[in-house]
């Protein structure tokens, strides 16, 4: 039941000069659910298709279960893939869709039947086995696609945005379902999505890809708490982290960060893990503030103008401009619904200064070891 998916310096050039995947190395551990996430066009699908054997690699090596499969056709890789649009066989019943791979493998009829029945039971498809795909809802098709993948008991699973065609409620439901099934099968899974929420909620680990380049690979907590650069910081978390040009200034013994008219002294805790931050004093950099770090008791106060308020019922999302700036940056803050802000007026909100992030203004690389986990 154990297996790994290994990519080693995998690169893909498309004709016309597009480098869709650039020197990508990662390993999906036995039983692990690894999510490859990034904005549209960053090369996720291409990476997955190379693992499946549907796209040739330009260079690099792919191994499944330590077996080199780089040049093997898809059928010899012992993988199963779930496609974004499900890719069901339209002319076959649900049962035959699921049985197709087993028939190709010349498995005995009896065994095929029992495996399909078992998978159908696991996915709640028992009553739909004789239907054709066009007689199914989106969610049901999704399940059939999952069923077709799991009956084969492959060495590895590949999934390309399998939930993106479902409505929001069903998507949340299916997230849990996919995880439940994957835990049971315990095969290494490489899961692609552009949705960071999906990545954070489903992944054992998350790999963030940008323009074909791997940015960071880590657990959801790691990439949230210690993003290696401003891109990851902005991509992970919802609403996105505020990234604001700022300078570090000396303030007595310590440091303060100044941006857009605001000046926040940094407490010792903010500096303790980052000895090299002091060396950045006087230089321009980018400061990162998570929307959820506003409005915490004990934080530094900043005077802001309330540009817009959105109530989500359970919480309040406020768009703020630091007071006294005309074209200052728009800051997003996630606040308790109890917060008394009025649109168009100035207010003082607190920012948890211990949880600021700092990035090089030019390269975007995290300065120090990133924000300390609270």
């Amino acid at each position, binding site marked *: 039941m154990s297996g790994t998916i290994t990519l080693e310096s995998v690169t893909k050039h498309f004709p016309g000069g597009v480098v869709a995947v650039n020197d990508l190395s990662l390993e999906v551990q036995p039983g692990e659910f690894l999510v490859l996430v990034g904005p549209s066009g960053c090369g996720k699908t291409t990476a997955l298709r190379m693992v*499946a*054997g*549907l796209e040739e690699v330009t260079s690099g090596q792919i191994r499944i279960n330590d077996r080199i499969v780089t040049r093997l*056709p*898809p*059928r010899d*890789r012992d*993988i*199963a*893939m779930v*496609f974004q*649009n*499900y*890719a*069901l*066989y*339209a*002319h076959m019943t649900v049962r035959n869709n699921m049985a*197709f*791979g087993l028939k*190709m*493998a010349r498995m005995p009829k009896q065994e095929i039947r029992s495996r399909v029945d078992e998978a159908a039971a696991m996915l709640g498809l028992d009553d739909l086995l004789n239907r054709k795909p066009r007689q199914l809802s989106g969610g049901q098709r999704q399940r059939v696609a999952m069923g*077709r993948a799991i009956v*084969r008991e492959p060495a590895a699973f590949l999934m390309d945005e399998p939930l993106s065609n479902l409505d929001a409620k069903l998507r949340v439901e299916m997230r849990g379902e996919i995880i439940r099934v994957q835990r049971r099968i315990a095969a290494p899974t490489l899961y692609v999505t552009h949705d960071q929420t999906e990545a954070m909620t489903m992944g054992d680990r998350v790999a963030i890809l940008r323009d074909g380049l791997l940015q960071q690979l880590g657990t959801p907590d790691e990439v949230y708490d210690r993003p290696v650069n401003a891109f990851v910081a902005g991509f992970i978390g919802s609403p996105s982290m505020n990234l604001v040009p700022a300078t570090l200034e000396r303030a007595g013994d310590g440091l303060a960060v100044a941006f857009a008219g605001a000046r926040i002294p940094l407490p010792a805790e903010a500096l303790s893990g980052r000895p090299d931050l002091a060396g950045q004093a006087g230089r321009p950099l980018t400061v990162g503030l998570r929307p959820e770090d506003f409005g915490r008791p004990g934080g530094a106060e900043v005077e802001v103008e309330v540009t817009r308020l959105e109530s989500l019922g359970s919480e309040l999302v406020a768009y703020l401009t630091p007071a006294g700036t005309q074209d200052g940056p728009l800051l997003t803050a996630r606040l308790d619904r109890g917060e008394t802000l009025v649109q168009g007026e100035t207010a003082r909100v607190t920012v948890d200064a211990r949880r600021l992030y700092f990035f090089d203004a030019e390269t975007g690389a995290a300065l120090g070891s990133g924000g300390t986990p609270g």
Partner: protein
Amino acid sequence: MITTPGMRVAKIVAIVLIVVWSVGPIVLGVTTSISTQREVNSIPSHWVPRNPTLQAYRDLLNGSTGQTTGGTVTRGGDFVHAMTNSAEIALGAAALTLIVSTMAAYALGRLRFRLSGAVLALLIGTLVIPIFVIVIGLFQVMANAQLIDTKRGLILVFVATQSPLATWLLYAQVREMPHEPEEAALIDGCRRWQAFVRVVVPQMSSGIAAVAAIIVLSVWGEFLIPLLLTSTMSAKPVTVLITEYVGKYTTNYPILAAAGVLALIPPAVLALVLNKRITGMLAGSS
């Protein structure tokens, strides 16, 4: 759009004209076929026969000497034989064309290979060549291959003339078809040809049916090529046979009309059954 009464009238007139234009000859054919020769020639002529009769059909199917039928000689069995020839040729050509064209369309639409664009352009280019430009060369080739007056020969020629259009129509369908199901098949253990046979072809079935109908209809109606390449009943299709019912001096119009009516039935049935699919295919939205 605002419809003025004038436009309404114009529209109705246009529809009536189109219907008369296309249905008129058929109605005329049917009424003529159940008339007698004398009635057809009577002056003043009348449209609806006073004493409808199936004599023309009997003469057509059982044979007539020309003595009683005014110049038109028919041999019993010939007409049915020609109908079967037509059917065999049309169905044979359709089957072979589809095998060739489906594979060609898939290869051109899916597989990346050098000159695939050029091959497609060349194929479509042949559509604009009028048939009479090549008939002489065609006759020589067929004669050398000893395929004159054979159904095989006609089938081969029609595969050649029909496959460009068929390939083009199916190519368009391949381009519209999602890649993923056949990729899923490759992952599920298929080789490329297995994925083609088990997943791609079934996916294209509606297009294939429509193209089959288009080929059968157009081959059924072919006249010039079989006229040139057949001489005896062994391969002569119904379109060619019918012209022989035109007598040298006089013609028995009811027999000619009966032949026309019967020859029309198979394609008419096919067109009615597959009407939706054919129009869909030709409109590019199969």
